[in-house]
């Protein structure tokens, strides 16, 4: 039986000066389904949704709601037609309470007097119906990111949204919060709401969607469903060529242990133990992946290995038999460590610095970049150009401020810098988080190449697919302990997932 779709967008085209953001895009959403828009950064997903929400006017094309041609000229008219939107950047006033935020822009049922008690009651009602558990009286600034997102969802539901758009809602959430969000979204579709979900994370998309529309460069490259497709196929559609999600890994004979952690215990920022008695060896020619839900000590472990955080007494860290337990970052680097930090804009690069300056952040003092005491800018330019070309960092110029590059390009820049020193050990934390598939593919191939050349690699990742695709051995961290170490051949996703949740402590 054929329903009239809740929403259908027909042949939408939208140009910005010099950019064709949406090119003849058509898709539809039915009541009670999650329809995902999948695409790399810049594919045109947000633009399409802003057209739907009345923020942009399309050059051509037609929007139909419940079968009727709809004219959506502003967010207000979108809301009137029961379209709700949760933007990636929340639009909440932090100093107001949840109820006040929800009431903002609505007319009170009591004329000039506020009706916040009515609003609160209704919020509690909605909150209970969908398991959102948000207290209407609490100030928004006290809420976590995940909770703020729920307030945005409540705002839309309060306005009776029948179609809800969520633009990259998972980008800011922890995996647990993502799982919670998905439960909430499912309850909403069960109640008949139509949901447009935007993401570029393949496993999430496959898990949540009923239907999927893939966009690339403003154009629809395919409509599909999770049952009909696979990660590989989705990735290919997003990128427009065959992507290697997991790089080929030739067999490499294991060398000696290069990085050794013994009885490693580390305190976290709050003074409690973040890492407890960790023992781990990483050998020449292997990639050891540390899996785990973030916040289980991975960051502290990485920072200690990098010399940024002191270890507790009795711990030991060494690289190629050089003891580095109390070493500074400079000494760990001199001992052969390269470090790709988790937060690339905080710890990995100086945003205000030019691309070339960030490429030199570590080895700027080397004699080859100087003539006498002064920098030799011609030599520096040549060197940096070579790195930029070799690692295909897309930048307008070497003098471009680094913060204006995309996440993927900044990560490639950091990789270029870190691999240039011919390290013996690479510590890479979340190397492809938030990075385009194309860039991720490239970064993975570089890590494998280093492994093949006898570098010992310790990779920390929350993304199990990344761990399974790259690692030779897998260690699972839970509550600061390494609770499981398995060879890749013997690892299953289910088993790892259980260990990550702390179900099986048998290390």
């Amino acid at each position, binding site marked *: 039986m054929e329903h009239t779709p809740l929403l259908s967008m027909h042949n939408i085209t939208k140009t910005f000066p010099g950019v064709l953001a949406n090119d003849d895009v058509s898709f539809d959403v039915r009541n009670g389904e999650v329809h995902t828009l999948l695409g790399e*950064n*810049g594919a045109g997903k*947000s*633009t399409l949704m*802003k057209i739907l929400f009345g923020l942009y006017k399309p050059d051509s094309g037609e929007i139909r709601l419940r079968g009727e041609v709809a004219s959506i000229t502003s967010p207000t008219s979108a809301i009137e037609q029961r379209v709700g939107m949760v933007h*990636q*950047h929340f639009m909440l006033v932090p100093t107001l309470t949840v109820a006040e935020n929800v009431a903002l822009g609505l007319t009170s049922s009591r004329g000039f007097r506020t009706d916040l008690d009515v609003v609160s009651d209704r919020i509690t009602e909605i909150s209970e119906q969908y398991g959102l558990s948000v207290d209407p009286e609490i100030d928004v600034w006290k809420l976590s990111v995940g909770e703020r997102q729920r307030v945005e969802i409540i705002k839309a539901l309060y306005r009776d949204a029948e179609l809800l758009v969520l*633009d*990259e809602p998972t*980008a800011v959430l922890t995996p647990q919060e993502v799982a919670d969000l998905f439960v909430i979204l499912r309850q909403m579709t069960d109640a008949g709401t139509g949901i447009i979900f935007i993401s570029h994370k393949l496993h999430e998309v496959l898990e949540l969607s009923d239907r999927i529309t893939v966009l690339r460069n403003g154009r629809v490259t395919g409509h599909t469903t999770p049952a009909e497709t696979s990660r590989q196929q989705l990735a290919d559609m997003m990128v427009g060529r065959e992507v290697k999600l997991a790089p080929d890994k030739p067999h490499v004979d294991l060398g000696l242990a290069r990085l050794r952690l013994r009885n490693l215990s580390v305190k976290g920022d709050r003074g409690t133990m973040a890492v407890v008695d960790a023992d781990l060896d990483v050998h020449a020619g292997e990639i050891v992946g540390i899996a785990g839900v973030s916040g289980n000590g991975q960051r502290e472990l990485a920072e200690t290995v*990098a010399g*940024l955080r002191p270890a507790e007494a009795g711990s030991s860290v060494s690289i190629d038999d050089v003891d580095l337990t109390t070493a*500074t*970052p*400079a000494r*760990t*680097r*001199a001992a052969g460590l390269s*470090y790709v*930090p988790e937060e690339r804009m*905080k*710890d*990995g*690069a*100086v*945003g*205000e*610095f030019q691309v070339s*300056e960030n490429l*030199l*952040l*570590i080895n*700027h*003092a080397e004699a080859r970049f*100087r003539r006498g*005491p*002064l*920098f030799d800018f011609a030599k520096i330019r040549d060197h940096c150009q070579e790195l930029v070309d070799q690692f295909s960092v897309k930048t307008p110029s070497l003098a471009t401020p680094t913060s*204006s590059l*995309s996440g993927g390009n900044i990560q490639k820049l950091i990789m270029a810098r870190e691999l240039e020193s011919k390290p013996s050990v690479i510590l890479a934390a979340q190397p492809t988080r938030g990075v385009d598939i194309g860039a991720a593919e490239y970064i993975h191939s570089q890590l494998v190449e280093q492994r093949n050349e006898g570098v010992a690699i310790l990779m920390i990742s929350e993304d199990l697919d990344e761990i399974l695709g790259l690692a030779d051995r897998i260690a699972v961290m839970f509550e600061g302990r390494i609770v499981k170490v398995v060879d890749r051949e013997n690892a299953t996703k289910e088993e790892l997932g259980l260990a990550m949740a702390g179900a099986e402590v048998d290390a």
Partner: protein
Amino acid sequence: MKRLLGASVPLGAALLAFMFGAIMILFLGEDPIAGLRAIIDGAFGTGDRLAATAVRATPLLLVGAGITIAFRASVINIGGEGQIIAGALLSTAVALWIPGTPKVLLIPLVILAGLVGGGIWGAIPGALKAYASVNEILSTIMLNIVAIQLMNYLLRGPMIDPIEVGTSRIPQTQRLTDNAALPTLIDGSRLHLGVPIAILAAVLVYIMLFRTPLGFRLRAVGHNPDAARAAGISVEKNIVSALGMSGALSGLAGVVLVFGSESLRLVTDGGSAGFTGSAGFNGIVAALFGGLHPLWTIPSSFLFGSLLTGATELQRALQIPNALAIALNGLIVLFVVSSDRVRAWLDRRLDKSMRPGDAA
């Protein structure tokens, strides 16, 4: 485009301050045009006045060049006054200690002593910040007070001019021997070696900041200490050296103030301004006015120097208290500091409008 706007902001601030000054002169019942003419005449009218302007600008430039180092490393140095005094005390002590040394040896020695004295006075708050997380704004201001009291003690006791001991006990050292005077550049003029030294210092600071590994590290630490640390750059050492170098240049300003003065001695009025002429503070203004760029600090310092000398003529010609010049100075400070906000805002605006909008 961005650079042009950046330059226009401090100029606008100066213009605004001058307009206020003109209004104030009007209220005093005088002709503002005549006032402006008096200032210009007083600052640049004759060769001597020009020389006086350059000499007044010299300590501002030295302090200001140092300030650019500290601020680029994201450390705030309000301790210029104390660092000037520390440099002056150590260099004067050296000159008193070895009076007979030939000029070619003595001048470099006192310059070195001034750099060391000011450098230590700057490095102390640097070390306190780096290793004990003591706020450098507080510690540099407190060290100003310590330096003043140290100077008062030394000039009343151990370093006092022996002639003063039995008589009026004016807190000052004896007049230094003539071979300790900074050589003049033109015979019969007050224009002394300190002027080209200060300009050279500003140029060297520019080269250090933007063309050497040391400056690279200082700027990296200033922009993002976390990333710098992760890359193996010692944040602590660079904070100490930034404040140390900043203090050393202020110390050099102290040398110029003693060894370039007509009285050729160190004298205190119990505070600091009597000796420094507030160069330790005005140098900060000159640096801010120059956009924290060492080369722009050169013309900026000369502008403030001319304001100071011009004020003397303003007072003489129009009988307007030279407090007006000080007020004018203060107004420019106010406008520059608030316009710094404007500039930051402009920067942000321009950055946004130049970046292709990734409306996520």
